[in-house]
């Protein structure tokens, strides 16, 4: 029973991270927007849903933080409201951030997006009235009340995200996004607004990341700012690159391989030597894997697959 519970934990985490991987595919794989601020949008979704749904009992933490009149825990909205709020708020934050950010060339965009995620992290740490800072938000309800059912709910949302992202790929909007990726000047000369196209991809991806954040909050039932650090972002990048950037199946595969086996699967292995060696080795292996893939197989395990027109028009 314990082993099953452990597998369930890993599977849920893999599924939630997969959703973030799919969102990164919309950003970087489709549209060439290197978002290194994934953790930020993940946090926006997680906090939005946590603040809206955490129960009143949680007030003690606010008092502890010195803000007895805080927002968190006052609303006690149902899960679905939290989820929608997470999606919408992450999209809105994406829009506001995107206005200055999406005018940048991709390398600057990458740097700026890390900064944005750090800003969001510091908001979570410092805006005690809203987030209770480092104390975090606890007692976030798990909507199904049961981890097995919750896993099914996460799988359902993963399936929806997968469908949405695939649909984007093969409809005209995906063509425009990929056109922007390949050559902005050409795509603009064909009458497509580059800024608007980048923005729609950006918001769509940010919203999906927000949904993943919401799922994370209700799974772990307690969140605190320390979970939304750049490591989260880099893990998503690593499995997306290894599994196959631009290929949604590859992203699922990468999530299972990297997040499942390496990141989570080795967590409970017996310590060899000093206790800090195993976690360090784990990170080293992941890092080496990334270097190897970027150098020798940048398209990942599963490369982009191009649909034939006959299959498309059928």
């Amino acid at each position, binding site marked *: 029973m314990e082993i099953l519970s452990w597998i369930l934990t890993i599977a849920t985490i893999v599924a939630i991270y997969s959703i973030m991987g799919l969102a990164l595919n919309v950003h970087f794989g489709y549209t060439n927007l290197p978002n290194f601020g994934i953790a930020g949008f993940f946090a926006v979704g997680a906090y939005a849903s946590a603040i809206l749904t955490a129960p009143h009992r949680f007030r003690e933490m606010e008092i502890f933080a010195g803000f007895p009149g805080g927002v968190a825990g006052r609303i006690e909205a149902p899960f679905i409201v939290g989820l929608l709020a997470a999606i919408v708020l992450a999209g809105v934050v994406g829009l506001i951030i995107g206005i200055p950010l999406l005018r940048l060339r991709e390398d600057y965009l990458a740097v700026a997006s890390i900064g944005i995620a750090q800003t969001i992290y510091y908001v979570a740490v410092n805006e005690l009235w809203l987030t209770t800072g480092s104390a975090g938000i606890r007692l976030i309800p798990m909507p199904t009340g049961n981890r097995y059912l919750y896993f099914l709910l996460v799988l359902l949302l993963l399936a929806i995200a997968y469908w*949405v992202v695939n*649909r*984007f790929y093969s*409809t*005209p*909007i*995906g*063509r*425009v996004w*990929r*056109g922007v*990726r*390949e*050559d902005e*000047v*050409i*795509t*603009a*000369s*064909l*009458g*497509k*607004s*580059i800024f608007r196209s980048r923005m*729609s991809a950006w*918001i*769509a991806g940010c919203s999906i990341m927000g949904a993943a954040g919401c799922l994370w909050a209700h799974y772990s039932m307690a969140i605190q700012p320390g979970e939304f650090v750049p490591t989260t972002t880099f893990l998503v990048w690593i499995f997306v690159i290894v599994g196959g950037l631009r290929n949604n199946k590859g992203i699922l595969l990468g999530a299972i391989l990297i997040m499942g086996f390496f990141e989570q699967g080795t967590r409970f292995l017996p310590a060899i030597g000093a206790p800090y060696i195993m976690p360090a080795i784990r990170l080293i292996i992941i890092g080496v894997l990334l270097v190897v893939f970027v150098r020798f197989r940048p398209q990942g395990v599963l490369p*982009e697959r*191009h*649909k*034939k*027109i006959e299959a*498309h*028009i059928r």
Partner: protein
Amino acid sequence: MGVIFKAEEVSLAFGGIKALDGFSIELEENTITALIGPNGAGKTTFFNVAGGIYPPDGGAVYFRGERVDGLRPDQICMKGLTRTFQIARELGEMSVWENVMLAPKGQVGERVFSSLLRWGTVKKQEKENWEKAEELLKEMGLYEERNELCKNLSAGKRKMLEICRAIMTGPELLMLDEPTAGATVDETKSIMGEIERLREEHGLTFLVVEHKMDVIMNLCNPIYVMYFGRNLAKGDAEAIQHNEQVREVYLGG
């Protein structure tokens, strides 16, 4: 027959170099006008100004009587003026069919929610656009390569593809920058044939930059000659061939 496009005294300098120095041109509707001149005369720079890539330093550009200089490339394309590039630029990691299907205007599925929700409309539009694209690709001899990635095409085929893509935007005025560069003799013929056919059957207007004199002389009237960013001459093939100045700077001897 009216004037569809007009550039007045357009100038543009890069640092100290005047790439365009008061260049003017007028295009009559439903004609094929040529723009020729030695390398560095400013032909491509003029295309970039007309296409919205650079705003000019001075002068004005009108399309259908409306001022278009200073607009963005996508806005200019939406008005009905599509241009191609001298060095064929293709969307390499996309297939030929995706390249041509990117171009049509007013695709409902280019909006996020419509793409997800309006299945029927999106599918119907895709079918309609593909019917047009299919016919065009067949005429241009690209149909066999429809599922190829563009980066795998030969230089000539890329040029053909670029013209197909431009046509698929449904323009009124097409500005082609060396449409037959890198194309084989056969490909050149089919490109020329297509240009003439589009002018005749669909009433399109063309501005063509070209170095192949036989193409220009057979296809285009009038011909503008450009030299150091300025107008040098204008006339039909006969007049241009016998113009002393043009012979001196461009045609040679």
